[in-house]
């Protein structure tokens, strides 16, 4: 066991820091602001500066460091990748404001795509193509395999009918990674296929969906007789379910860093808030702030411990805990920011409340993290069944 990284790792960090000092656009400093991107103008979902920044990262091999240079990386080791994620999170610099292309589409196509489809990967990572993911449906949320958007095979093409929902960035996307049912008679996990849809195709209707903060960065997407060429099938017909698990495997062990760093930043925001409101000497407030800090600190330790197992080649159960733990703690932290404001906790008037009502808005938006990408309840099921070996719930 050792506390510090070695000199080689620190040299790597220094190189990254030098690059960031030179290239980070000033807008990126606000990119991970407390309330995330929810307050952004709907019409400017993915602003030009963020697209330029993503391309710069790609061109310098800093977009996905573990990938080779032609895919926006520099063949980094796992430890270097962790240091990269650590440093980006510490400076709160976002790589990209649209994750589906580089984080989901690219690794999935590299693993399952045809030669032609793999040619789409560099543009997905560089952000030149904006992707959305057609997964959730009104009746297929946690039970994703219950999706019912259908694709029927006619001659050399698929015809898609149905509806997706919570589709992030659909309004801005050029392409959609769309999960469809191609065999309604098969058991539900075995009749799903993955198609690449061009969002310009006739029959696709996109309706922005406002979320709780009032902003809209996801949408409902309706498909009416949408024609998709046969060669846009990814992988094998009816074998799409296993591709749903796709993500940046070599970054999964470090993705918690961003969650923990955000928690730490938000807790520091609480300390500042308590100080401004004259509550920082209140013993109850102090104890609560310390407890929140303790929990964030122990999660950081857990993240590193999990990473150590991963770097040694073992599967690391620690990672199953991190999403649930950071998102749940985040909710508490934001809510405590409201509590510290007493009667003013629900005020959204920028002239009367604290900081534009960002605590109440942050609290509302923190639910995204305990619901999206596998709710906390689903995470607990996964921990219980896959990590603890308990029998499946009937």
């Amino acid at each position, binding site marked *: 066991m*050792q506390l510090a990284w070695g000199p080689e790792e620190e040299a790597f960090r220094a190189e990254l820091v030098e690059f960031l000092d030179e290239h980070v656009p000033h807008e990126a400093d606000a990119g991970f602001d407390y309330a995330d991107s929810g307050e952004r103008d709907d019409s400017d979902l993915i602003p030009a500066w963020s697209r330029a920044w993503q391309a710069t990262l790609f061109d310098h091999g800093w977009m996905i460091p573990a990938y080779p240079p032609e895919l926006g990386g520099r063949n980094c080791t796992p430890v270097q990748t962790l240091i990269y994620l650590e440093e980006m999170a510490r400076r709160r610099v976002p790589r990209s404001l649209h994750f589906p292309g580089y984080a989901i589409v690219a690794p999935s196509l590299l693993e399952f795509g045809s030669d032609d489809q793999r040619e789409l990967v560099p543009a997905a990572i560089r952000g030149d193509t904006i992707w959305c993911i057609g997964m959730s449906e009104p009746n297929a949320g946690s039970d994703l395999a219950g999706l019912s958007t259908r694709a029927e095979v006619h001659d050399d093409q698929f015809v898609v009918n149905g509806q997706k929902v919570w589709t992030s960035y659909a309004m801005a996307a050029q392409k959609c990674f769309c999960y469809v049912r191609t065999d309604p008679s098969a058991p539900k996990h075995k009749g799903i296929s993955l198609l690449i849809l061009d969002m310009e195709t006739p029959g696709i209707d996109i309706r922005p969906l406002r979320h709780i903060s009032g902003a809209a960065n996801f949408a409902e997407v309706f498909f009416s007789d949408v024609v998709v060429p046969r060669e846009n099938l990814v992988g094998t017909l009816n074998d799409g379910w296993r591709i749903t698990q796709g993500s940046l495997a070599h970054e999964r062990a470090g993705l918690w860093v961003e969650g923990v760093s955000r928690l730490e930043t938000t807790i520091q925001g609480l300390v500042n808030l308590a100080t401004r409101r004259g509550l920082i000497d209140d013993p109850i407030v102090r104890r609560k702030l310390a407890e929140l800090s303790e*929990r964030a600190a*122990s999660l950081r330790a857990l993240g590193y411990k999990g990473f*150590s197992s991963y770097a040694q080649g073992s599967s690391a159960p620690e990672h199953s805990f991190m999403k649930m733990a950071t998102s749940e703690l985040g909710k508490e932290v934001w809510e405590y920011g409201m509590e510290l404001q007493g009667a003013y906790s629900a005020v959204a008037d920028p002239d009367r409340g604290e900081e534009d009502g960002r605590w109440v808005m942050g609290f509302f938006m923190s639910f995204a993290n305990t619901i999206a990408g596998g709710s906390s309840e689903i995470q607990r099921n996964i921990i219980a069944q896959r990590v603890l070996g308990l*029998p499946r719930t009937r």
Partner: protein
Amino acid sequence: MDFTLSPDQELLRDTARQLLGRECPAELLRAHIDDPAAADALWLHLRDFAALGDGPLTDLCLFAEETGYVAAPGPFFPTAALFSPLLGALGHELLAPAVAGEVTGTVAVAGADGVWRANDDGVKTFVPEADRVDWVAVVSSGPAVTLVQSPSVRRVATVDFSRRMFEVEVGSDAGPAQSVDPEAFETVLERATVALAAEMAGTARRLFDMALAYAKERVQFDVPIGSFQAIQHKLADVALDLERATSAVYYAAMAVDAKDADRHRATHVAKAAAGTAATRAAKDGIQIHGGIGYTWEHDLHLFIRHAYGSEAWLGTRDWHHDRLAELLF
């Protein structure tokens, strides 16, 4: 930051696990309730590891996690986690026989308020094993240390059968006090606190393992109760607290060993997180066991008792949170 165990550390952990599993069964804990000499045979094994008291804290924690798993009674913890480090801070000649496992000792610091800060109270509180160890190191303000043998003590019963607690009278004829560097003394207490947190992580793991095993074997409504989501989610939450506590403990141990600037904060984080893990594993463990977990006959209570006894010692969660607050804001 690397949590990977070295081959030597893996060997230490595996050796400790085997030894303690064999030599410290629940029957020993039960015999020890009425007769503390029942733990003497265990000490004859554990004395071989007394040198951990003068080595890296990470190694002591690996061992303490296993003593916590079996709720080992006796002089090992006070000798290795408190007495030897204090002797080291003093540069005292008893250190050599203490790390050789030839003499045992304990440390008396807290006064009437139970807080482990040097003070001049006439009665020291929450001193483990004070009646059976060879030496009691009494710490008064300064801090200054007086080594005494056979002081006047009074057993104070706690719920924890594995850690026998005493009040120690500070005698006027105790002999000369030797002053100890305040910073070195603080490190002694920090080491002991992190080692205790490691022990508690071990006890929490034991409670969790028992509850998990029971959830898999206990059948109600024709299925194992572990197939019910209410039980699964409870166990997932216990597992999370256990994992984060264990991680916080080894982070703190590494920070203390490296004399890192974060070590003071990390110590408070470790003890508080271990307290949460141990008491939650205790509470939810008994709930998952249902009626049988409420009986004297079942071994569960031996560990629940140790969890709560440990939570109360060397600073509760609230106390450590308050200290952490002093360091942070």
